[in-house]
């Protein structure tokens, strides 16, 4: 089995921190270079995926809208930690398609299949 180059764990909520945008920039570059990249969402990172958000109310250019371009960039492996959703009383409802919700142990097994792992 060929390992994918990079996994990024997203751990921060979208607006007060820049980590989500910094992670997205890396993901899109890897996608445009046709490098295998997978995105993992854990902890408050899951708030980057919840529906009905509107960063423009915070005078922001809403980078979450760019998530809909993942397919175009061949970024297809997007994993969410089930426990992180439960802790926050969230359901598996997201603003993009094809998100895989996994229990922590399976989430960890997918993560390990990558040559390098970053966390933002």
């Amino acid at each position, binding site marked *: 089995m060929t390992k994918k180059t990079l996994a990024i764990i997203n751990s*921060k*909520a979208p*607006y*007060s921190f820049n980590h989500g945008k910094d992670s997205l920039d890396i993901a899109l570059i890897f996608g445009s270079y046709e490098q295998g990249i997978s995105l993992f969402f854990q*902890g*408050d990172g899951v*708030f980057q995926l*919840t*529906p*009905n*958000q*509107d*960063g*423009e*109310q*915070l005078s922001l250019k809403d980078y979450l809208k760019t998530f809909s371009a993942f397919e175009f960039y061949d970024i297809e492996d997007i994993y969410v930690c089930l426990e992180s959703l439960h*802790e*926050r*009383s969230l359901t598996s409802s997201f603003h993009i398609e094809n998100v895989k919700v996994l229990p922590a142990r399976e989430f960890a097994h997918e993560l390990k299949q990558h040559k390098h792992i970053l966390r933002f």
Partner: protein
Amino acid sequence: MTTLHLVRQSAFNSQELFQCSQIILPADILVLIDDGCYNLNHTLLTNIKNIISVKNIKVIQHHVSARGLNVPEFIEVISMNELVNLTFDTENVITWQ
């Protein structure tokens, strides 16, 4: 003596709301702003409701709606103007960030 507590961080991520809950006193006011809005679903908010009156827990309107969060009926939604007024209706303010 009333203190205004502004909580700007998610209690799912760090300890600001917890530390606030340790020292909040019955006459105080709590306003959830920025990522503090995520605390609407946190169990610590229940602890705080046992200390201060629920009418003294508030959240900034556009901060909560931008995050796509639902506000429980008993929590008052306020504007930035109302936050400024609260700053002067209370004796001092602590920003938990």
